């Protein structure tokens, strides 16, 4: 199978904030049709990496975007302002001018048509998360970049929304780069997992990454073995020979 050319490619991204290294030569690429999940502990530089990729923070290294790439971005934090009157429908329409029906279609796809007339400042955390996702797809992007997009959503809703992202990937034929802390849900939807802790610790299919010694070192043997069980039950693509009892039998690709 040949990989299509990447939509976005980061080469050797390094970020230093106030003298402290935040990211150290990180290279990640995302292609059409992939759901790449970026995981890592707090302070590992996940959000900073996404911001560097989007030119929101100064960085060294190179970011190459496919020509004419349309990006849909869901930031981790979205500041709302009471001084600005803004209905949900108008919020989406700002990003899709002169196109009839796309706002209604985006709201319907996420299942939040009833929020169209609501003021953005009055939305609950879960509603805002869905509105931000609808906003990110309103212009039919080639690449979705989602930074902890469902932090304010309850558990049941979160699982549904992660499945929705996999569906959107197929419908829009786009690539997805997702930052998440929720390892369980993420593992079930990822085509590829990148494990970040200032540098890329390990990378590959979910089933392989969780048995990588670098992953076990980062998240601890207990989480690694729990996830191994989980991935075994949920993974319909990758053959897994056996479920490791603990972290002492790593089978994944080794890295530095």
């Amino acid at each position: 199978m040949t990989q299509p050319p990447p939509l976005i490619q980061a080469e050797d991204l390094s970020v230093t904030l106030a003298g402290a290294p935040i990211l150290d030569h990180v290279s990640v690429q995302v292609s059409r049709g992939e759901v790449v999940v970026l995981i890592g502990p707090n302070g590992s530089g996940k959000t900073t990496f996404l911001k560097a990729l989007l030119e929101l923070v100064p960085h060294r290294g190179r970011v190459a975007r496919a020509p004419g790439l349309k990006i849909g971005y869901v930031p981790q934090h979205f500041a709302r302002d009471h001084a600005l009157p803004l209905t949900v429908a108008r919020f989406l329409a700002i990003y899709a001018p002169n196109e009839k029906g796309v706002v209604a279609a985006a709201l319907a796809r996420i299942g939040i048509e009833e929020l169209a007339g609501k003021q953005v400042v009055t939305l609950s955390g879960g509603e805002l998360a869905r509105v931000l996702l609808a906003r990110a797809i309103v212009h039919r992007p080639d690449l979705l970049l989602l930074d902890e997009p469902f932090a304010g959503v309850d558990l049941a809703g979160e699982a549904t929304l992660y499945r929705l992202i996999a569906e959107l990937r197929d419908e829009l034929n786009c690539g997805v780069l997702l930052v998440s802390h929720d390892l369980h849900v993420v593992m079930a939807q990822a085509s590829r997992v990148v494990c970040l802790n200032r540098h890329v610790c390990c990378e590959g299919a979910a089933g392989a990454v969780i048995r990588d010694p670098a992953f076990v070192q980062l998240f601890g043997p207990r989480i690694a073995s729990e996830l191994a069980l989980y991935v075994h039950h949920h993974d319909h693509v990758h053959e897994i020979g056996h479920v490791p009892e603990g972290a002492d039998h790593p089978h994944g690709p080794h890295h530095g």
Partner: protein
Amino acid sequence: MCPKAPIILTALIMDSFLWRAILGAALLGAAAGPLGCFVLWRRMAYLGESLAHMGLLGAALGLLLGVAPIAGVAAVAIVAGLIMARATDRYIPSGTFIGLVGHVGLALGFILLSTMETVRADLMGYLFGDVLALSPFDIYAVAVGGAVMLAALWLLWRPLLVVTVSRDIAIAEGRDTRLADLAFLVLVAGLVALALKVVGALLIVALLLIPPAAARPLAKTPEAMALLAAVLGALSAPLGIAGAYVFDAPAGPAIVLAAAALFVATSAGAAVQQKITRSG
């Protein structure tokens, strides 16, 4: 009811100059309303105030160099705006730096103006404005400038709104934020130049803040708020100038007070409506 009403009527009928003053101030108010919405949404009242203070220095330099004060004000405000836009929070909060620059401009401008024999009598006009003391050229400049600014805001509306709603999303999705930022700065500087002799350096920001604040409780979309702010800003001019006639008060402060009265009216109206909705 109003003993001086016949005087105003006579003045209006007799004096086409007064009509021009009202029209100029109204167009200025109409442009300041929507622009002020962005000042409010982007929390840049401090920047606006500092640019207005710099306007006094601009007027002084314009007079010194023998060019129209309005051109001096615009030039100095744009340069000052570009300097202020570079302020970072590295050692002191950026607002402190912006305020510092603005007050230097105010102090320096005041000193320069007070050394000019012919201007000294007009100093109050520079600080608090007097639309009725404007030359016919100035009045036309204010009217045409106000109309041009309204047109520019119409054309730049979406890029300005995109940057206002979320700068990060705008940059991330590859939208041009520099054009919107520069345009915003130039528009505020332009408004300062037009408004300096109408409401004065110390009251320009009132023109940017009060009509949008009055429009906010009545609006559900940014466009509705901008339109209402334009209407309320324009309305403040004839109300204020009429008030100035009746009470023999300076016209600039009277326009600001008229805008404030509209703010009180819409806020009270919104509060009453909310009470009715809740109890009903």
